[in-house]
């Protein structure tokens, strides 16, 4: 389980960073999304006493109420906040992306290369 999670975080981060460094705005936003997925998974794995494998997420009658028997609830709360904020920020970035596309006529992150395409007959 640990190796699967670690690998998926690694692959998501790697692809996210690669896309983030690409010159097209759409690639950048995909990169940022992948990066935020990676971060959310990472927060999950950072519960107290490590990754909670096969532990109860909610209280069950008859099980001792400590972290040996339950998943740490705090990372879940953190992830929820991070997801909400990340979502809003991605939406905002999308709006700016569209504005930039509309103003410069190109989807390059620097708004460059617009002149050549406009001068084409």
């Amino acid at each position, binding site marked *: 389980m640990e190796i699967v999670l670690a690998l998926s975080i690694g692959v998501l981060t790697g692809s996210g960073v690669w896309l983030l460094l690409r010159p097209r705005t759409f690639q950048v936003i995909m990169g940022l999304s992948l990066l935020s997925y990676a971060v959310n998974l*990472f927060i999950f794995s950072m519960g107290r006493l490590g990754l909670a494998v096969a532990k109860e997420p909610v209280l069950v009658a008859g099980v001792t109420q400590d972290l040996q028997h339950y998943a740490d609830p705090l990372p879940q709360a953190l992830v929820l906040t991070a997801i909400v904020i990340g979502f809003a920020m991605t939406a905002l970035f999308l709006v700016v992306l569209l504005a930039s596309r509309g103003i410069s006529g190109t989807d390059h992150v620097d708004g460059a290369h617009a002149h050549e395409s406009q001068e084409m007959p």
Partner: protein
Amino acid sequence: MSRLPELADAFMPHLMLAPIALPMLTAALLLLLREEQQRLKFTVSLVSTLAGLLVAIALLQWAHRAGTAAGMGVYLPGNWPAPFGIVLVLDRLTALMLLLTSLIGLCSVLFAGARWQRAGVLYHALFQFQLMGLSGAFLTGDLFNLFVFFEIMLAASYGLLLHGSGRARVQSGLHYIAINLAASSLFLVGAAMLYGLTGTLNMADLAQAVPQVAPADRGLLHAAAAILATAFLIKAACWPLNFWLVPAYSAATAPVGALFAIMTKVGLYALLRLWSLLFGTEAGPSAQFGSLWLIVGGMATMAFGAIGMMGSQRLTHLAGHAAVLSSGTLLAACGFGHNLLTAGLLYYLPSSTLAVSALFLLADLTERWRNGGATRAPYENDDDAPFLSPELVPATGMNLDDDEQVLVGRIIPAATAFMGLAYLTTTLVIAGLPPLSGFVGKFAMLTAVLNPLGMGSSAGQVPGIAGWTLLALMIGTGLVALMALTRSGIRHFWAAPERPAPQLRVLEGLPIALLLGACMVLTVQAEGVMRFTTATAQALHSPASYVRAVMQATPRQAPQAPGNSDAPLPGIGARP
């Protein structure tokens, strides 16, 4: 004004909530008003910001008077004891930053009221949200809460940066948002790693937990701290993470640029707070971790800022690079982790921030004067250097010295005189020349570098390579900044071709006068302010009292149900 302390006493600790709650409620109210009601919106925003300033003054006085360990303000918003619930903490450093924020906020609101608020929608609401995020980031005592307030601040700043639209703003806004989203990811990774290692996100609890981390995990702890610090260094504009700053700040409208001058200081505040808590002298084997990185990064930032100022053709770019230079100086001084140096740094921080803010506002006025009302001359492209334009070939009527025209008896209009004097004052503060506060701040820092144990008692201690380099850089960058600002001043104010006197409105002149007046107050009251910052630095570098105050804060008792105490209402009295 003299009744403020009693009022503060009466409303403490609830007054600590005001810097967050007041802008939030104001912003909510402003969202309800229609876009045509500009004047009403401006009035509401102004009144709220003014009230915020008074609250900040009251909090500062309270923190300075009751600044001992027991008197530190700790507020438990959820009424849960410290490591479990979130906390707001007020100490001298927080109070200082709150006052600086609300002062710059007030000036920025005033300036925006003259003209810029009409450049787009929802200006004042976004502005109030930004103030809320800033105040929250300064007040919170919880790492994850810090993240949330950072995001509030950044979300509002994205809107403010794009205010007025236009190609330059959208382009630099795109870069600004992308780098800040990446920085937020780093923040989350760092915070999550710290939680995984220590099991807490409360800053005071973290400070207690850091010395107890197992030796095998120490590398992981340092990695977490470094990742977190990278996120803050991006905000604090440390080289090489600061290439987004100058395009974004110079593209923003003038009042927004002035407010953004304090945004870089939030990164510095977070670094100073967390570094002194987590890696202070009491942190055992991790003490002073990363000190060299801060010093080297700060020095590189100083050099970058100074070279950038030298190469700037536009006043707004000059102001942006001045913000970088001030940030670099503060970072390098912070890295030494030294009591007296931190005291000097905390004096230099408000002075340089105020001056950079004033320069942003002044740049807008001057550019509009030069270009006849427009922010940018019609013939200029984004990339052109304004002083290489044909306009600059000395025209007839320009008074060069070799023409020996008589200057005596020429009337200088009051507005021109005001702008010239304001520019001169800003130059003196940013370059750190006597007699103004920039000089006092730099002098205090240099003295601390040369006499680490205090004036006249160096006891054979030598500053070392880092100390001498900081000394040389501080003097060198001051000289370069002076040259760059003087050159720009000559071009804008002395060698100006004949043109009508600038139209200076009270709403635009007043904020600049306020900002520079605050610098004057800092200069005149230097002794008192230095005493305050020395106390702040001492408290910062001995975090035990901070930790004790936060961890020992007790929740308030739940009120007993009136009459029959045998059967309390459900939900009341069950809380700890």
